[in-house]
């Protein structure tokens, strides 16, 4: 029997008169959960609520059995088991990478200097920055800074890791390395990843949640999510009629998501991206039009 790492019950969030998250109930067990959704869908809001960075407008959140929405002691107890990577990180550029993570380790109650320094070295090695520990942050590349920000989320092997677009700025090799790290955590804890990279979800996640306009549109295994698009993806010499999205592939054929197939068009296995585009519906068309 698996124990839920986080339980959200009818959690909603508003910023003034703007509703960012409609009442939402979720139970997060062990494994990697992918959070998909267009910009402004409420992904970051949901993650910040999970990470206790802000209180919900209504509803309750419990992490590792501690009520985030309860007393300060409960909230602090919950924070001890959470590692969080925000979408944007403002670095003190004059600091060294080691000093950056070391200070955050102090904020995470690593009071013993020796064990703290060993832990900081461990997480820097984990993200491949072990040889950059004495470098000033201003000398790091964008990808290295992203990895540095990521490293602090792994301090103390937290039971719940919440990552807001962790792969932004990472090259393919670094992304593969991150997948390895996150998948190794899947057996013992919960990792929630908000991303626009659908291939990351396909490669890494056991479960996917699609959030649109502050509402959960889909919540289930990745396989089930992909299955929603099976039979709706076509490859042929031209785009299908009424397609949600279509593009010319490297082989010269046109891949169409949704729509009615015409002559010469053959069904092809769906991907997470196809399912996502279909689920977004007209928003996908709008997005494609905007790109065009």
């Amino acid at each position, binding site marked *: 029997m698996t124990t839920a790492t986080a339980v959200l019950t009818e959690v909603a969030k508003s910023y003034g008169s703007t509703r960012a998250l409609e009442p939402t109930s979720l139970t997060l067990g062990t494994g990697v959960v992918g959070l998909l959704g267009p910009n402004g869908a409420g992904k970051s809001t949901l993650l910040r609520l999970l990470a206790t960075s802000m209180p919900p407008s209504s509803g309750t959140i419990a992490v590792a059995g501690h*009520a985030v929405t309860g007393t300060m*002691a409960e*909230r602090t107890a919950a924070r001890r088991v959470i590692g969080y990577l*925000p979408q944007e990180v*403002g670095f003190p550029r004059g*600091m060294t990478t080691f000093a950056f993570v070391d200070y*955050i380790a102090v904020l*995470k*109650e690593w009071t013993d200097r020796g064990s703290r320094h060993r832990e900081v070295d461990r997480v820097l090695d984990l993200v491949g920055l072990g040889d950059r520990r004495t470098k000033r942050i201003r000398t790091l590349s964008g990808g290295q800074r992203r990895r540095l920000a990521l490293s602090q989320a792994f301090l103390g092997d937290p039971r719940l890791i919440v990552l807001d677009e962790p792969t932004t700025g990472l090259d393919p090799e670094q992304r593969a390395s991150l997948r390895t790290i996150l998948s190794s955590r899947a057996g013992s804890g919960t990792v929630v990843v908000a991303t626009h990279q659908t291939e990351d979800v396909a490669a890494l996640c056991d479960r996917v949640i699609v959030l649109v306009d502050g509402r959960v549109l889909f919540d289930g295994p990745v396989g089930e999510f992909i299955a929603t698009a099976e039979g709706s993806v076509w490859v042929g010499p031209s785009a299908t009629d009424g397609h949600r999205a279509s593009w010319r592939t490297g082989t010269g054929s046109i891949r169409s998501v949704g729509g009615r197939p015409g002559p010469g068009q053959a069904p092809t296995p769906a991907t997470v991206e196809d399912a996502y585009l279909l689920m977004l519906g007209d928003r996908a068309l709008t997005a494609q039009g905007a790109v065009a």
Partner: protein
Amino acid sequence: MTTATATLPARAHNTTSPGARLAMVEIGRYARNPLFLVGLILTVLTTAAPEPGETRNSHLLTVLIPALFLGIFGLMVMYQLTRRSDRLAAAAGSPSVGMRTRTAALAAAVVVPVTAGLVWFAWTVQIYLGTDTPADGLPFGGVGDSWAISTLFALGVVSCAGGPVLGLVLARWFPRRGISVIAVIVLIIATVLMQGIIEPLRYIRVIMPFTWFGNQYGVEGDPERYVILTGSPQWYSAYLIALCVLGVLVALYRDPEPPRRNLRIALGVVATAAMVLCLLAMTTGVQEVMVNPIPSAFAVLP
């Protein structure tokens, strides 16, 4: 739902509390801050050793040295440290050590400039007590060493805490680019206006966190004549300390997370105490402005 345990995670296996550990970190960061070190060097360089034949007057006026180099510089140092701490905490989202503990740890770092101020105070007091009071200087009349030493303590030592505490309050409530520089300029202008130069403000000048109790204000025909202003520097020291405590509480109050009830009560108590102490500083001690009967060397004699 389980009840939250107050115990720390297994990793924090030594006896130091997270707040105390963070305070030590902030003290170290303050002590290594380049602006603080520049201020410290300038304080040492300008706090000269006594010269033969030197009188007490100049030592009473040297309070400007720590007030400027440790207090005003400290405002900017503390603002920088607080903003940096905020950025680091934001990078981790919501670490278990919250904003209130971080604020308290930053406030603890005030021990660095205050220690430097106390060293300056000890040095200056022993020089002051070891030199003569000239008949045409400060203090005179019924005012003695207690008045002079209290003045040195209030303006020389407490200002070393007051500047950084103000920096902490600004960083917590008005975190804007350039705000610390603007605050320094405003503070200097306001302080200059409230030094007792302007006659109607002489009585209420003690509400300012830096003001003279005696100086070369001059009289007609003697622009350098020493004058002692009204008020009690002893109560003024207590008032400034209360202002510093109030500043820390105001900074702590910025954290919106409950509970804040005790903090509100403490704010009310300390604010009331500060007002009472300010009134005492205003209404006790020297009651009338006193002019040294001995003319200065600049007097235009008939």
